Every structure is written in structure tokens, then in C-alpha cells.
């Protein structure tokens, strides 16, 4: 078990900076997920920790030891990748034990560790199977067992569930959480899927454009996003954004006006501001009491309804002249969550309120969060 520390990690290619001055301390036993869109630098960061890529600048410590220039095999880490790289000509036992046999562990110890790992990932009784006789989920469990037997200081996992179907992915997510609990070991996990990041991690490191945006527990990233990028990336469906400016009395956009005291929140009149509100923090006017502190009501038109079973997504337009974008999330559009039995139809004129307690403000120029509540 070990802490992992990244200090000033930068990875540069000619005119592209893939990772920019990354500073991060991961505690012993912590489950930290690097999350961000494709190409954001999360895998490159992981590769520098693994030793598969040398950083242009900066140092990496694992367990207090500078490993920046050490080869992967001397870093005390185990890796699990998206591509489940099992040897096709070896059975499960040989695949799991391969790393131990390379290191010349005695047979008794190899057997003990394989048995223990197989037990953790529930592969008992499958030791003789060949990879081609197994399902994708079983193969990934073999890959994880292979990482476990090495008893590493830290696990590095890069999109390990990406090749599995949706149902299996959810199942393996739970298994990985259980694994973390049982082994009590440091896990660094890379994914583009914010649902995996939210559900499994002690902390999420949100990365965009090679730059660390926020490192915080999942709910903190959700409730108090450090900037507009994090606010839009964490949460599904994503937060709604309204572009406008600060006035003497609050916030004004083309379609909305929200009262608050600018001074209390350090906003100056005339400042360009983006207001953010999550779909679950917007209510029909009739349900305004569900909001802790409702705004005044706004007119809207129901564009598209998406019944999801336990809830219903309603894509709204602030006015009939708004041209709906393909994603339904453009300017003048708003996505809200309603109860599945709400009496509402596409084309209806409705009135809505937002919960001021959960309206976020971002400085439009920098994207930085100004406040997470207008109360």
C-alpha cells in the first residue's frame, strides 16, 4: 500500500502539451479516478505514473520513493487495461500466476496467492479454462486477479470496463468497489465515464485539456463544481447553463431574471455571468413548494418528453421561437426532471421555477465558479 504523489508533471509533444503542470497527492488506500473527455490527458498522466511514458518535467513518487526514472516493473504497481491482455495459449491459472512465476516465487506461495485472488474475483473452479472459453467479464476478472496476486503498492486501471456491455459494466463496478474495500489498497482509475467516476471513487480528479480542473469527493464535484467545465461534465443529464450578466438586482439573461444581492456573492454589475442549474433543481410552478427557495416563475414550452420509468426528462424551450438544437441543450433551452406521472404533454405552455438554493454562478470569462447557491 502506498501514497502516490505527482509534482509538476508536464508531458509535451512539439507544440502540444498533453499534460500541464499536474500536482496531485493520492493518499495510501485511496480510490482516485481521473475523469475527462477523450484526449484530455488522463491516460497520459496514468502512463507517467506507470512508467510507460516519461514526463517532460516533474517527478512521481510512489510510497515516498522517487520513481520518475524507474522502469514499470520496479515501481510496485499492477496495471489493468481496457484491452484484456490474457495469453491465449495459457489457462486461467497460468495467466494469473505468470507474473509470480517470472519472479521465481515458490510454488506454494504462487498457489496461495492465486487461490486468494481467484476467491476475491470469484473465479474459483475455472483455473483450467482457456481465455477463449470465457466471457468478456470473466476474462476481465482474470486480468484483475493477475494484478492482485502481485500484491502491488497501487493498482492502475485504465478504462478496464470499457469493452464490457452495459449490464456487465455495472456489475463489475460493484465488484471493483468490493475489491477496493477488501484489499484496502490505493487504486488510480481512468475513465471517460462520469458515472463510473461518481460511483466508485473516494475522490475524482477532473481533467480537461491536460489541466487538472478539480480534485474532490464525487458529491463535492457535483454540488460545488470548481468551474463551468466540471459543472457540465459531472452529472447526467448535464447541468443547464444560461448566459447573461449581473445587474444591480441579480442576474439577467434573455429569458430569465433571478433576484439576488450581487455584493453578497462578490459579483459586480455588468459582469458577464453564466448561471447553472441542474435538471432536478427546476420545478413546475405548481410544485414550487418543493424548491427550498423558488425563483419567480418563467414561461416555457414543452418541446420533447422522455419518459425514463422512474422519472421523466422534459426538454423545454423558453419561447416558441427558440430553434431547438440537436442535443436539446442550446441557448433558450432547458432540461428538467419531472415525476413520471406528471400531467404534461409536448407542446404545452407551462411555467417553471428554479431553486435559488441550488443555482450556480460562473464567471463567463474564466469559467470559475462564483457561488453554488443564491441564498
Amino acid at each position: 500500500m502506498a501514497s502516490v504523489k505527482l509534482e509538476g508533471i508536464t508531458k509535451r509533444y512539439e507544440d502540444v502539451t498533453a499534460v500541464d503542470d499536474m500536482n496531485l497527492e493520492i493518499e495510501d488506500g485511496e480510490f482516485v479516478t481521473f475523469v475527462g473527455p477523450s484526449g484530455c490527458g488522463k491516460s497520459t498522466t496514468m502512463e507517467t505514473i506507470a512508467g510507460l511514458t516519461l514526463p517532460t518535467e516533474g517527478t512521481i513518487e510512489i510510497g515516498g520513493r522517487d520513481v520518475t526514472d524507474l522502469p514499470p516493473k520496479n515501481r510496485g504497481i499492477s496495471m489493468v487495461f481496457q484491452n484484456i491482455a490474457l495469453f491465449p495459449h495459457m489457462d486461467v491459472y497460468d495467466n494469473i500466476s505468470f507474473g509470480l512465476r517470472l519472479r521465481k516465487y515458490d510454488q506454494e506461495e504462487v498457489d496461495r496467492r492465486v487461490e486468494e485472488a481467484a476467491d476475491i474475483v470469484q473465479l474459483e473452479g475455472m483455473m483450467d479454462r482457456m481465455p477463449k472459453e470465457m466471457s468478456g467479464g470473466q476474462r476481465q476478472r482474470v486480468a484483475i486477479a493477475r494484478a492482485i496476486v502481485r500484491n502491488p503498492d497501487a493498482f492502475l486501471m485504465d478504462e478496464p470496463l470499457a469493452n464490457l456491455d452495459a449490464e456487465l459494466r455495472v456489475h463489475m463496478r460493484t465488484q471493483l468497489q468490493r475489491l477496493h474495500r477488501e484489499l484496502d489498497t490505493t487504486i488510480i482509475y481512468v475513465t471517460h465515464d462520469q458515472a463510473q467516476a461518481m460511483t466508485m471513487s473516494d475522490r475524482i480528479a477532473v481533467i480537461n485539456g491536460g489541466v487538472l480542473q478539480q480534485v474532490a469527493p464525487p458529491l463535492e464535484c457535483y454540488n460545488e463544481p470548481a468551474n463551468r467545465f466540471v459543472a457540465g461534465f459531472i452529472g447526467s443529464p448535464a447541468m443547464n447553463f444560461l448566459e447573461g450578466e449581473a445587474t444591480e438586482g441579480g442576474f439577467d439573461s434573455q429569458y430569465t431574471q433571478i433576484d439576488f444581492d450581487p455584493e453578497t456573492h462578490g459579483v459586480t454589475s455588468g459582469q458577464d455571468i453564466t448561471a447553472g442549474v441542474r435538471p432536478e433543481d427546476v420545478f413546475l410552478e405548481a410544485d414550487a413548494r418543493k424548491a427550498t427557495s423558488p425563483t419567480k416563475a418563467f414561461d416555457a414550452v414543452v418541446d420533447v418528453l422522455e419518459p425514463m420509468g422512474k422519472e421523466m426528462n422534459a426538454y423545454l424551450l423558453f419561447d416558441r421561437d427558440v430553434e431547438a438544437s440537436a442535443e436539446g441543450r442550446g441557448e433558450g433551452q432547458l432540461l428538467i426532471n419531472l415525476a413520471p406521472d406528471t400531467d404534461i404533454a409536448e407542446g404545452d405552455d407551462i411555467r417553471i421555477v428554479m431553486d435559488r438554493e441550488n443555482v450556480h454562478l460562473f464567471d463567463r470569462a474564466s469559467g470559475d465558479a462564483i457561488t453554488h447557491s443564491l441564498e
Partner: protein
Amino acid sequence: MTHANDVAVGIVGLGGIGTHHATKLTDRGANLVGGMDIDADARAAFHERFGVHAYENETELYEVCDAVLITTPNRFHEEYAVSALEAGLDVLLEKPLAHTVESAERIAAAARDAEGFCMVGFNNRFAEPVQVIKGYQDEGRFGETTHVEANYVRRRGVPGRGSWFTSGDVAGGGALIDIGVHAIDLALYFLGHPEVVEVSGETRTEFGDRDDYAFVHMWGDDNGADGFDVEDSASAFIRDADGNTVSLEVAWATNRPTNDEFVIRGTEAGATFDRGSDDLTIHEARAFDDEQHHFSDTEVETRESDSHAAEQAAFLDAVAAGEAPSINTVDEALSVQRVIDAIYRSSERGEAVRLD
């Protein structure tokens, strides 16, 4: 162990290239202790010729070896390389690293963890003119090398049709994976083995699958068009992370004269190297105080070299020293394999493929 010729070395795969390596090893007085092949005739021929035991099972061979050369058909590289690494041996694995990029990744992962090392058989790097070019590059004579024209083009030179070389299942491809692998490796070697970020390529099957395939020479026996299911030529454009590029032409068969030229283009000088003849010319354009502007083409004469022998020497020296060689590493071979895979994918999709 103090001397390279004390290293107990074995060979897995006793076909054409395995026998070639065994001959070179005995020529230099190396300690060839045995071979292994699943084919009884190959074992008998090897034993007859080299006077050492040929095993049916690789684990028995591994027990008497410090190091092995693996010269099996591509598809079996992984099985034998991984078991040799597991046995704690150093490995010289013939090119390509593997028949697929996935298999190549697994071999590289095993090598990273192993006590021994895995060197890959890109023998062309050991040709004297190549090392001369490298020497001038290191001295700065070329400035920045920004582009390499890499040609490995045979007018007609499909290896025995119907042999494993022309079977996609066993070889993993045709001309591209067989000889293109050398051209890609050499080009990337001249560029300092950078990170490749984009590949655009096209592969073609135009001759080997024809009943009327016309040729004047063939490596092996011709069993006709039926056993041929791979490409016989490929063209590609390769871009690295720094914007440097490689233009690649590879063919077992095409309607143009044979071409073995590598053109190395730097900001201060260039070079033309003919892999077939070992001819090397350095191209410069100079002036003295803005007068006497002129072109200068310097012909370089080098010692005769045997690239396979030089490669074996580097391998055995590294084994004797107990240190992995810094040349022909498994990670370099893996990046070559990724480029090959990307050319196949690019050709299939009809568009460039990103690798970053």
C-alpha cells in the same frame, strides 16, 4: 560469464531463418547448444548439420540455455517468447514482434516484467552504412532529420506462395508485415524512434493471388495462388508527434523496378542509402561567405558488413554482460507493430488513423 561465445544459446524454430542464424552462430564460434522444432524432419536436418540436439519440447531446450533465438512463424512468437522469458532466458526474437498488435502488446508486457530481456531481430540497423548515417546524425551533420523516404520494393519477390509467409492466419499479413516491418523500423530508427501519432495507408493484393503470376525468382516453392490471402504491396504516410514524417513503399510484387533506397532528409544534409547494395551518398548544399554556392554529394565507402552476424554479436554481448541492449528493444518493436496495424486499419477504413 565473461565472453559472448560462452553464452549457451538455443534456437526455437528450425526453418530457413533458424538455420541461417545457426550457421552464423557456428561461423563465429558461438556456443550453440541445441534447437527445437515440432517438425521431425527439421529436427533431423538441424542435428545432422550442426551436431547438436534438436528437442521436440521447448522446455527441455530452455533447461540447457542461457539465451534463445526464436525464429518460428510469426503466429507462434508469443508462445515461445513468453515461455522463454518465464524460464528466465534472454531472447532474440525474429521480426516482426508478433502476427498481431494484441499479441505484440502481450509479449512486450511480459518482457517488461521479466528478468531477461527481449531483443527484436531488426538486423538492417546493424548494416555498416546505417551506423555511419547514425554516427553523422549524432554528430549533427544532418541537422534535424525531418523526413525519411523508406522503400522496400521488389518487382517480383513473393516468398513461396502457399508457405506460411503468404497465410494471413499464420503470418498476420503479407509484404507489409514481412519486409515492410524492416522499412518502418529503419525509418523510425533514423527519426530517433519517436511517438507515431498518425498513419494513412493502403494495402493491395494484385499479383500473388493470380494464376498467371509471372516471376523470375522465388524464395521457396510455388504452390500457386490458392495459398495466398495477404497483401503484396503497401504505401503509407506516417507522422510523428513532432511533425516529422515517413513515406513508405513496400512490395513483394509491383510493376516498377526493384527499389531498396532509404532517403534521409535533414535540415542541414541528407543521405541516400541503398539497402540492397549498401551504397551510401551524403547530400549537402553549401557556400563560403555567401560565395561559391554549390551542391556536394559525398560517396561513403564502408567496410563490408553482415547485419545478421552483427546483430547476433550485439545480442550475445548483452547476454554476457547481463544488461539489456539499448538497440532493437521490444518497445521499439511494439511501436513498429502499432504502425503496421494502423496501416491495415487505415486501408480497411479508407482514412487516416490516429495513434495518440
